[in-house]
């Protein structure tokens, strides 16, 4: 398969995967472009692999994981609108969308390897063994990352829920006194 054909077929899914990893449109574009340039440079080797797409996805994952080491991410989201951008999905607000938007923000606070595991597991639908291949670790390590990530998210969600409940309880107490 020629590189152009590969890129034309796989670029949209690579961009989506990059966006799930980093949560930033511009950064996702930069990461994907950088990885495709490197893939083209060694395409002669990549095209003979059984799964060139899996190889390039691993390159993209590594690019994401190495971002922190090479450069600070300059993007700072000031508001939810800024994070969502102009193409925020049109989902009815009473469908738990606000909660999932909050979850999306929380995903961005996870350590990168943990976030990568969550994305690979729940967006790319990979098994733990396949995720281990991508990350170059053991499956048990993947499970540990996933458990830690979900625990972190649950704690954050519970804290939010408690915070939401507190004012209502206070008002009731006040009314009763």
């Amino acid at each position, binding site marked *: 398969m020629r590189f152009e054909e590969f890129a034309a077929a796989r670029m949209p899914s690579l961009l989506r995967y990059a966006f799930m990893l980093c949560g930033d449109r511009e950064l996702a574009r930069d990461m994907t472009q950088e990885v495709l340039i490197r893939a083209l440079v060694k395409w002669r080797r990549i095209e003979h692999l059984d799964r060139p797409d899996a190889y390039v996805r691993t390159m993209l994952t590594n690019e994401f994981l190495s971002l922190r080491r090479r450069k600070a991410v300059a993007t700072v989201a000031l508001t939810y609108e800024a994070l*969502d951008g102009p193409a925020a999905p049109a989902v009815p607000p009473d469908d738990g969308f606000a909660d999932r938007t909050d979850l999306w923000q929380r995903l961005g606070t996870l350590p990168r390897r943990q976030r990568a595991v969550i994305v690979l597991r729940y967006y790319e639908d990979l098994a733990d063994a396949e995720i281990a291949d991508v990350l170059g670790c053991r499956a048990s390590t993947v499970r540990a990352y996933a458990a830690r990530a979900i625990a972190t998210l649950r704690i954050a969600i519970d804290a939010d829920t408690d915070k939401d409940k507190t004012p209502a309880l206070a008002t009731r107490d006040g009314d009763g006194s």
Partner: protein
Amino acid sequence: MTRLDTDTLRRTFSERTEQAPQGLGMLETVLAAAPARRKRRRRIQAIGLAVAVTAAAIVTPLLLDDASEPPSPSDGPRTPLTVTATVAPESGYESRYRELYGGVERLGIEQRGVGSDRAAGWVWVFPPGTFDPQPYRTGEPVDVNGRPGYFVPRAEYAHDRSLPFPGTPMPPSTGFDTRVAWQAPDGRWLLYRSHGEQSREVALGAARSVTLSEPQDARGPVALPDAPGDLPIQGVGLRDEGGLTLEVSYGTTPVTAKDDPAWTSTTRASLSGFTLTVFPHKGLRDPMPVDEPPYRIGEIEAWYTESPTYPYVRRLPNATLPNAVAQPNAAALVVVAGTCVAIVAIDDTRQTPRAAAEAFVADIDFRDCDDPSTWGPLLR
């Protein structure tokens, strides 16, 4: 807060897919950046190799493999005999001209039935990585059949000056036209360029009339053998003006997609081969050449001349003048085969001698030029 479970996580991601960035123009950027990256990579490898040699280290086979040059993504033309673009019949536009060269398709588009001043233009379909959309990004973002594109209401002809123009000098860059550039889902770019300035509505209508499909063999009234000297096909032109005229250019210099899109089938990329033109015999006023009697190549009547002015060819309708530039050592072989006329316009008889041209023509399977139902793929 929603309970954190698998479905919630999956839904959180799936709701965000639409927010992912588009890859518009990214492939072109990647292809443009790769050569410099290869150079840098080789330089680093050379330094690494020097260090390794100094240290008497062993250079691994992997490193050596890395140092080799990967094939350029744009090496060589794709087959010029497949078509993918058509004009939707209900669109109000039609196409009677099609050219294929170096993997690029070009369609002539005209408004259907609006008189002699009807709007017209060309649509090019460029393979992934062979079109630079950068100059068009300043245009108005538009939607072309669900795909993002750019509308440029007034573009100078000079816009294409950076592109080489094979065979002849660049024409004077005066005047303006209207353009629409957009990218297909598979990475190909399409460019509509009007004949003269057009309204937004007409230009976008022309662009939106184009549909892409899976590659199909170009079909015509002949099945072609290999060319003399295994000359490759440079380009194919198909004109349907009450009868199909097929023009196939053979030459040693392949036309690549980077060549000027203004190239037409009557502008040869190089004068080092020959052009085969096939069209229906009906409608010609006279028998073919009148200056001398025909001779026979198998079952077909033939005339041959080495006159640089192509007297036989000049008797044909204007639309069928192939390579009318007279040059030393040029020649023409004209044959009548059933309902078809074929002309082999030879650029240089030292490269394509008469006997080779005659053998080529004798090996062509002629179908019925008047009956499209008999037509098939152009290559045997």
